[in-house]
C-alpha cells in the first residue's frame, strides 16, 4: 500500500523537529531515511506510526486519511535498535504471536511462520528460547515477528545498530531482498550511508529536521542536490576544498594551490565570469596511485591510517585542510609521514557558495 505524506511537519513548543515535507512511500522497495542523530528520522517514524500527531499536514493511504488515527487502529509493525521478544516464548511462538492475536487458523500460522523463518534463516532455531540466541538471532526473530503480521506499514528504526559488524554486513545484504518480496511498505531509518546503499531502494536524506533529497538511492548518492545532501550521504565525510573558477582561462584554482582544467559543464554555464565555489571530492575518489590523464596530486602529512573492513581510511593533513581517502586493501602508513593523494579532475563535484550543485562526475 502506498502512503503519502503531504506537508507533514512537527513542532514541540517552539522547537521545530520536522519542517513541513512531502514524501511518497511505496511497497516493494525499502524506503530508507538517512540522516545523522537529530535529523528527524525517529520523529518521522513516530508520526507515521500514529504515536505522535503532526502539527501540520496529512498522512494519506489509498482513499483514507490516517492523520488523526491512533496507533492501535493502524496496521503498523515496528522494530527498534533493542531486540524485543517475548522471553517466555519459543522463537516459533514469538513469530506466531501477531497471527494468533489476529485469530488465524493453526495451519495458516504454521505455514506463515515456516515461510518467514526460512527467509530470515531461523528454521533450525524455531524451538529455542530467546535467551538461547545470539544478538543477531534475537533481532532476526524480532524482524520475523514484524514481517509475519503483514501490516500495511513496517517501520524500522536503526534495527542493526546494536549488532556486531559481521552480522550487520550479512543482514544488510539480505534485508534489501527480503523487503522487496513483501507487500508491506517498509520504512527503514539509518545513520549509515553504506547501509542505505546496501539496502538499495529509495533514499530520503534528512538533515536537522529538513528533507534534503529523495530518489533512487544510487542516484541520490551520485547526484546530490546540494552540498548539505552530499555531506549527509558520505561516510567517511566528503572532502570539501574552496576553489575559484576563472572563466576567462577556463581554469579551476583550488585554494590549496592546485590548478585544474575546469569541467565543461562549468564553462558552458558560467562563461567568462569568475566565481568562488566549493569542490567536493569523495573519499573513494582519492587514491595512493597516480590516476593518469586528468589526474592531479594533493600533498600532505598522514594523521592516521584507519583500517575498516576491506578498506583503509587515510586521514591526511593538506595545508589547513584535513582530507580523508578511502583506499581498497590494507595499507599501513606511519603517523606524520609524507603522503601524496591522487585524484582525477573528472571525479570532482562542484557546489556554488549557497551549496547548489554546479557539476558532478559522469557515471
Amino acid at each position, binding site marked *: 500500500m502506498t502512503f503519502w505524506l503531504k506537508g507533514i511537519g512537527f513542532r514541540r513548543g517552539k522547537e521545530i523537529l520536522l519542517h513541513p515535507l512531502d514524501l511518497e512511500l511505496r511497497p516493494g522497495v525499502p524506503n530508507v531515511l538517512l540522516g545523522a542523530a537529530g535529523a528527524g528520522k525517529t520523529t518521522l517514524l513516530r508520526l507515521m506510526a500514529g504515536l505522535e500527531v503532526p502539527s501540520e499536514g496529512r498522512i494519506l493511504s489509498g482513499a483514507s486519511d490516517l492523520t488523526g488515527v491512533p496507533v492501535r487502529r493502524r496496521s503498523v509493525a515496528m522494530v527498534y535498535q533493542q531486540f524485543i521478544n517475548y522471553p517466555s516464548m519459543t522463537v516459533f511462538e514469538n513469530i506466531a504471536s501477531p497471527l494468533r492475536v489476529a485469530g488465524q487458523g493453526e495451519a495458516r500460522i504454521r505455514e506463515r511462520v515456516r515461510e518467514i523463518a526460512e527467509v530470515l534463516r531461523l528454521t533450525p532455531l524455531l524451538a529455542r528460547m530467546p535467551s538461547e540466541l545470539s544478538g543477531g538471532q534475537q533481532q532476526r526473530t524480532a524482524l520475523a515477528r514484524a514481517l509475519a503480521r503483514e501490516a500495511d506499514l513496517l517501520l524500522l528504526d536503526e534495527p542493526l545498530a546494536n549488532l556486531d559488524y559481521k552480522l550487520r*554486513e550479512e543482514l544488510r545484504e539480505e534485508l534489501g531482498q527480503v523487503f522487496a518480496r513483501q507487500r508491506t511498505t517498509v520504512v527503514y531509518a539509518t545513520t549509515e550511508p553504506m547501509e542505505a546503499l546496501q539496502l538499495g531502494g529509495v533514499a530520503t536524506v534528512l538533515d536537522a529536521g529538513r528533507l534534503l533529497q529523495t530518489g533512487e538511492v*544510487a542516484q541520490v548518492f551520485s547526484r546530490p542536490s546540494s552540498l548539505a545532501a552530499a555531506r549527509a550521504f558520505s561516510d567517511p565525510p566528503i572532502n570539501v576544498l574552496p576553489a575559484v573558477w576563472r572563466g576567462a582561462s577556463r581554469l579551476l584554482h583550488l585554494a590549496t594551490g592546485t590548478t585544474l582544467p575546469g569541467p565543461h559543464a562549468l564553462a558552458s554555464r558560467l562563461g567568462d565570469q569568475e566565481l568562488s565555489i566549493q569542490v567536493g571530492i569523495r573519499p573513494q575518489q582519492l587514491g595512493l596511485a597516480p590516476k593518469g590523464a586528468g589526474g592531479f596530486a594533493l600533498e600532505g602529512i598522514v594523521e592516521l591510517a584507519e*583500517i575498516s*573492513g576491506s578498506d583503509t581510511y587515510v586521514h591526511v593533513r593538506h595545508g589547513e585542510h584535513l582530507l580523508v581517502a578511502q583506499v*581498497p586493501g590494507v595499507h599501513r602508513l606511519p603517523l606524520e609521514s609524507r603522503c601524496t593523494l591522487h585524484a582525477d579532475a573528472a571525479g570532482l563535484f562542484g557546489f556554488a557558495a549557497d551549496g547548489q550543485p554546479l557539476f558532478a562526475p559522469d557515471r
Partner: protein
Amino acid sequence: MARIEFIDVAHTYANGTPAADSDWALQPMTMTWDDGGAYALLGPSGCGKSTLLNIISGLVKPTRGRILFDGRDVTHAPPELRNIAQVFQFPVIYDSLSVRGNLEFPLRNRGWKTAEARRRAEQIAQLLELTADLDRPARGLGADMKQKISLGRGLVRTDVAAVLFDEPLTVIDPHLKWLLRRKLKQIHQELKLSLIYVTHDQTEAMTFADRVVVMSHGRVVQEATPEELFERPAHRFVGYFIGSPGMNFIPAQWREGSAWVGDVPITTQSRADPDAADIAVGVRPERLEARTAAGPNSVPARVLAVRDLGTHAMCTLDVDGARVRARLPDVADAAALTHLFIPPERSALYAVEWRLP
C-alpha cells in the same frame, strides 16, 4: 616494559584435563610478544581473548603451561606482583579527585616524589590533550573525558611490564573514535610501552596494532601484521573475519597435481599438495576480475544479484554451485560478465581450514 612469553599455555574452566581440543577455553599456545610492541587480541565474544587477558594480568592461573615476563616465570604470581596496568571498557576514576589527582594517583601510591609525579602526570596530560582540564574535578565530566583520564591512568606508570586495554573505546562517541585511535598510536610511538589491546572490533585491532592475534573458539588461529591477515589469511576464519565482505572460499577438487573448480584448473600462490580432500580456493571479493570469455584461471560465473554501492558494485554470483562475492568497478561489468578471473598471485588453496603454503 617486558617481553612476554607463553610456553604451552592452556586453560579450562572445567575440572580435569579436557579430552578434546574444543573443550579448552584456551587451547595450548606458545608465543612471544616483543618488548615495546603494540599487540591486539581480536575475536568474537567467546573466542578466549578474555581468558588470555586474565592469564596475563594474573586473575586466571592457566591449567597448564608457563608465562614469562622478561624471562621471569610469573605463572603463579598474583596480579599485584605482575606490574600490569589495565584500562577497562568503562571509565574507572575517582570522582572526588581532580583530573590531575587521578593521573598522579597510581604514582603516589607507589611512593613517587610529589614533583616527579606532577611532571609525569603533566606529560601524559599533554599527550592526551588534557592539559587545560588538569585542575577540573573529575565529577561531572562527560564519558569521553572520563575514559581519556582512565587511559591516562593506565599509561602514567613507567615501571609496568605492559598496559592492557580491554575494549577501551566502547563509550567513545563514534565520531571521536578516530582521534583517540590516533592518540593511542602516537602515545605508543612516543612512550614505547608494551601495549595489549583486546577487542572484537577489527577496525580497532587493525588500526592500532603492529601485530594482531586472531582468536576463534579458544584457539589462536593467526598472529601477524594487519597486511598479512588481509592478504594471506592462515585460516579460513581469518579470511572470513577480516575484510568486509570476507574472503570467498570456492570448493575445489584435487587431481592431476592441480586444483580444479569445475573443469578449470586453478593456479594459486600455494605450492604444497593438499593432505585432505576438502579443499577450497580462497580469494577476496576485491581481487576477482570480470571476464567476458573463458581463459586461464577464469571460472564460469552466473550473476545472482548486483548492488550499486555508488563508487563500485557488489556482486553475488554462482560459481560451480558456490555463492561468491565480487567487488567490481561498475554495475556494467557485472551485467556483461560470463567468467571470473582468479589472480594466481592473490589467491591460495585451503585444505579443510588452513592455508597451504
